[in-house]
């Protein structure tokens, strides 16, 4: 039967007409989040003065303070089986993803594939994904930037001086080693994203988390590398593939919640190693008995 959704025990995930992935909790209709892709155009200048500095390997500096939306081709397919249900979504020629729900795991996985980012228009682009929820998080979010404990971040704020940000996007971006999260200020709810690699992230709106996925830039930022961040392979820009694990749950049972939150990043960072042996004899029974 044609369908546009997959489901786990606790939730349903649907693709809407604009290509956004919509998550809904089966028991609590208010627990909803939407995932989408966007991009920033990178700043370019002659690097002579601060205002003319380009976005590069050392600094993220978008040209405007808002993201651009991407055209959506509207292609997806749904796969269902005994272990996993997946939505295979093609966003456009260079962005696609697989959204999956494992039957015996109370988490969602977004496996994104970005690139080669087109730069025929001579504009560098920095691709982000946004997860927008109804959590009332205000201007606070949390990152594990030092790879140890979670640090509280507040939008447009520094704890030890009065801040006036001239660049509101990059000034609110923080390193994410494995985790970025939001807490609801009223309900006992927490929304966490776990990454499989270090990324940059922020929360620019109440209830929203944003992570940088891939960058292709055409100018050096004059901080030392002396090359534009324009990695190439096979005569085209790089393709990157990675995973975000999402965990959105109430924190009534804080013990089990905390255990789960500590397990996920460990499992992502230290995955099992796989070794393959090919028996020279075709008799596989020999191996079963060995």
């Amino acid at each position: 039967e044609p369908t546009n959704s997959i489901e786990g025990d606790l939730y349903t995930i649907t693709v809407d007409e604009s290509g956004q992935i919509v998550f809904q909790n089966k028991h609590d209709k208010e627990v909803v989040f939407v995932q989408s892709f966007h991009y920033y155009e990178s700043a370019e200048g002659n690097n002579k003065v601060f205002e003319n500095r380009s976005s590069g390997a050392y600094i993220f500096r978008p040209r405007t303070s808002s993201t651009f939306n991407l055209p959506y081709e509207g292609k997806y397919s749904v796969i269902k089986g005994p272990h996993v249900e997946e939505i295979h979504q093609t966003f456009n020629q260079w962005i696609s993803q697989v959204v999956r729900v494992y039957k015996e795991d109370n988490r969602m996985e977004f496996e994104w594939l970005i690139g080669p980012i087109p730069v025929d228009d001579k504009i560098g682009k920095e691709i982000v994904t946004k997860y927008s929820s109804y959590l009332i998080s205000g201007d606070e979010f949390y990152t594990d930037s030092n790879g140890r404990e979670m640090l509280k971040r507040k939008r447009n704020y520094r704890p030890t001086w009065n801040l006036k940000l001239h660049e509101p996007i990059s000034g609110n971006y923080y390193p994410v080693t494995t985790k970025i999260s939001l807490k609801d200020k009223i309900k006992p709810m927490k929304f966490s994203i776990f990454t499989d690699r270090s990324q940059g992230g922020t929360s620019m709106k109440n209830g929203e988390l944003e992570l940088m996925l891939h960058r292709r830039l055409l100018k050096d930022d004059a901080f030392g590398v002396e090359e534009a961040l324009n990695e190439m392979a096979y005569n085209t820009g790089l393709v990157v593939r990675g995973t975000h694990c999402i965990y959105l749950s109430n924190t009534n049972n804080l013990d089990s919640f905390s255990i789960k939150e500590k397990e996920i990043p460990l499992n992502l960072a230290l995955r099992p190693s796989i070794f393959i042996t090919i028996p020279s004899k075709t008799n596989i029974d020999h191996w079963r008995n060995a």
Partner: protein
Amino acid sequence: EEELEHFREAMGVMQHHDAVTGTEKQLVASDYSRLLYENIFNNEKMAAKSLYHWANKINNSNDDFQMHSCLELNISACAYTEDNANFVVTVYNPLSRPISSYIRLPVRGNSYNVWDTKENLEIISQIIPIHDRVQQIPGRKSKATKELLFRAIDLPALGYKRYTISAKPDTEETFI
């Protein structure tokens, strides 16, 4: 020790701040890739030796006991699993506590038997198509169009489990 030392040296180089943050020049980045690839590839034998040591088995040079790692699983490619109807998978858990984990292997067949050799029972597996865009990644030279998925249950802490996998008869002709 000597083989391991090369690997340690490569990991040492990767501690440089440019390697951690990606602010190295492109030629240096390519050299880092070369270093990592060569050393991981060369340490396959050592990993196999360790596993056979734990299993109290002799790691002889017989092809039957050669172990290979799949360094292109990040683009859903593995010559060993996609070109063979029968193979054995050793799954090592690097964590200090038991875990259960889903294992994905690139394949070409439509249906497989997956046998847990420790529990001595067949386990449920699923075949999932690889996303079209993954198959079109520039430079990917793989015939795999699907992934075989199964759940490795109760992998022991800092230990391993082994699974034998064989294509079901109706799909074996794919590999001839």
